[in-house]
Every structure is written in structure tokens, then in C-alpha cells.
């Protein structure tokens, strides 16, 4: 096989002019190719990201995170109200003159404990965590107290529970004025 470049070289001046022209076309081609590949890559990346985003629904059939829960006078001291457990995942508890909204999500691994009236404690069926009426854990694997949600009194005098804000005792947040209502 003849070595590369063994073709008879064109006359020097002609080659020079020709290579300039070639260089010109080469630049144009390279630019277009580069642009085309870049556009292709960008649209592919955008489509991939979009597909990932597609998997995150925009509309959810979840109950609203804020709900009204009657007037403070309806709550008796020492009583755990279970009426909002099923739909909103909240117990409303009054201890002495304080009303607060407890999350029904076990702080171990997220099951829903039961309120045991006779034993006056919350007991989780999954791995046996127990919580006092105020939400503080005292037995089983749960590492921290139940969380409380923001609770306040609305303009119409009704209690408003806002689940988008939560208060954790171990972070000292139960003392926050929004963590309970004091009568």
C-alpha cells in the first residue's frame, strides 16, 4: 500500500488557495455540525429531565393541610379527640388549659398508633412504641416524641390546625406560641 499522501501534490499556489476555500467550508460545516449536535444533546437532556419531572404529580387527592376544628370550649381537659384522625391524621388533645394538635405518625417508622383510653397512652401496633397523652415517647423503639402541628384560633373563633408547620419537642419547638392554644 502506498504511503499516505503519495498522491501527486497539486501545484503549490493552487493548493494554497484551495485549502483556504476548504478551510472556509470546513468552518461552516463544523459550526453547523457542532450546533446540530449541541441542539440534539440539549433537547435530549431537557427531555430526560422533563421525563423525571413527569413522575412527580402536580395535583394530589390529599385532604387540605389546613382545617377547622370547632371552638376551644368544645374540648374537655384530659380528653383525646379522635374525630380528625381518619381524614387529617391529627389528634386534638387538651391537657389542663392547653390545646394542641398531635400528628398520628409514629416517630419510629411511620405507622399510626392507637389511643388506648384505659391505659391513657398512644400505642403503636407496628413495633410497640408508647407515647404519653402529651405525645412524649416512653416505651418501644420510637426515638422522639410525636410531632405537633400549628394550631391557632381563626377570626370566627374556631380552632385552625395547619399541618404544613410542625413542632418537635426535642428541638425545643413545643414552647412556640403556635404549637398550642392556651385558654
Amino acid at each position, binding site marked *: 500500500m502506498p504511503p499516505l499522501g503519495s498522491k501527486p501534490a497539486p501545484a503549490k499556489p493552487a493548493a494554497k488557495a484551495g485549502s483556504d476555500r476548504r478551510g472556509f467550508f470546513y468552518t461552516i460545516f463544523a459550526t453547523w455540525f457542532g450546533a446540530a449536535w449541541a441542539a440534539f444533546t440539549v433537547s435530549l437532556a431537557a427531555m430526560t429531565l422533563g421525563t423525571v419531572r413527569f413522575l*412527580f404529580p402536580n395535583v394530589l387527592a*390529599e385532604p387540605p393541610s389546613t382545617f377547622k376544628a370547632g371552638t376551644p370550649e368544645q374540648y374537655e381537659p384530659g380528653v383525646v379527640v379522635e374525630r380528625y384522625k381518619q381524614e387529617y391524621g391529627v389528634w386534638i388533645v387538651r391537657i389542663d388549659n392547653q390545646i394542641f394538635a398531635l400528628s398520628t405518625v409514629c416517630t419510629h417508622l411511620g405507622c399510626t398508633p392507637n389511643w388506648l383510653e384505659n391505659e391513657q397512652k398512644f400505642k403503636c*401496633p*407496628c413495633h410497640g412504641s408508647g407515647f404519653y397523652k402529651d405525645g412524649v415517647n416512653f416505651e418501644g423503639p420510637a426515638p422522639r416524641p410525636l410531632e405537633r402541628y400549628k394550631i391557632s384560633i381563626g377570626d370566627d373563633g374556631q380552632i385552625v390546625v395547619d399541618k404544613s408547620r410542625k413542632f418537635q419537642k426535642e428541638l425545643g419547638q413545643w414552647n412556640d406560641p403556635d404549637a398550642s392554644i392556651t385558654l
Partner: protein
Amino acid sequence: MSVGDFIRNSQVWKSIFRHPAPRDRRNRVVVMLTNFFLHLHPVSIRKQGIALSYTWCMGGITFFLFLVETVTGVLLMFYYRPTLEHAYNDIVTLGQVTTLGVLRELHRWGAHAMVITIWLHMYRVFLTGSYKPPREFNWVVGVILLVLTLLLSFTGYLLPWDQLAIWAITVGSNMARATPLLGHEGPGAKFLVIGGVELIHSGSDARFALLGQRFVGEMTLLRFYVLHCIALPLAVALLIAIHFWRVRKDGGISGPL
């Protein structure tokens, strides 16, 4: 002419099987090479490769169980509807009303068995040192297969939609909350903030993507159903094909230690 000869000489038979019966060495080879299913297996292998004491046939049993799961799973799909209204009752119906509804138990026990045999297979590959070069890549393929098998197990567990299922998936998926960066209670997630807006919260983290909502509900059931019946089995089938192909390309089942 005997009936057997008549069949073997018919045009239909010959159009399907182009070679004589595998009675001599040459035809045994040719039959292996010209049959789609048989050609998946090498024509000749080392004696070691079929020694039960060496492979325990654990990879083979795992593959067999995958096939059992595929067939019984497709049959179950004719009766099971992944909605809150129907899911649980459809499973009960399979057990109490449907003829040969025991296929459902077969699917469930097969799934448990497959998880056990895949671990044993991995254990034997480890014990025989078969993960060493040139087989490192097939070990990696195997690890992915293991993860996919466990995911099949996890997604399938939710489908009966009984208390055990719902709470097992609640507990299991809560681990995803603690994913680094991508879980809203995980390390680093609270630093992903743009202009005061948290990027990772309970409505945008890894668990949310898995469940399709913030708790285990109807969206979750549908998601797990699609993953369990379509996405994961396809991925496993593809990887099993690569796995087997690599066993051959890496020189067949490994030799004695």
C-alpha cells in the same frame, strides 16, 4: 412406515427442525446451534459446570423461579385490579372463588424462594471465587439483578392491599425520607434552597417520587403495580440475558479452585 417416521418425514416437521435427530455427535452439535432455545446453552461445557456440588444450580433455580413468577404473574393479572376498591377483594377472590386460585400462592411462595435462592447463588459465586477477573463485570450485573429482585419483592408486597402490605410499605418507604440530599429528612437536603424556597420537601423528595403522593395510597398502589408488572420484570429479563451471555463470554462457568 411407522407413525414416527411419517411425522419426521412430513414437510411440517422438516420445516421446523432442519436436521436429523441428535443421535450422533455431529447432529447433536448442529441441533444445538440451529434451535433458538437450545442455542442459548453452549454446545459443550466443562464437566465442572454441571457439577451440582460446584454451582448448586442456584443461578439456574433462580432463573427457573423467575420464569415461574412471570407465568403465574401474567395469569394473576387477569383477575387483579390495582385500585383501592378492588385490590384486596380481588386477592381474596383468587383464594376463595377462582379455580386453581392456588396459582396466587405459587406466585407468593415462588417470590420468597427466589429471594432465598438468589442469595445462595451469590454466596456460591463468592465461595468459589468466581467474581474474580475476568468475571468482575458479571458480578456487578449480578448485584444489579439482586437489587431488582428485592425491588420486585418490595413492590409486589403492597399489591394485596391488606394491613400488612400497607404498613410494611409505609415503614419501608420511610427510609427514603433519609436519603442524602434527595430525602426531605436526609442529610444535606435542607441546604438545597434557592431564593429561600426549599427544593426538597415532603412533596418533592425521593419518597414522594416512589409513592406518587405523601402517604401510601391509590397512586402508590398504581405505581407499584406498574413497576412490579412491567418496568422491573423487563429490566430483570434484559439483565439476565446479559448475565448468561457474559457467563459464556467470560469462558464458561469458572474452573476448580
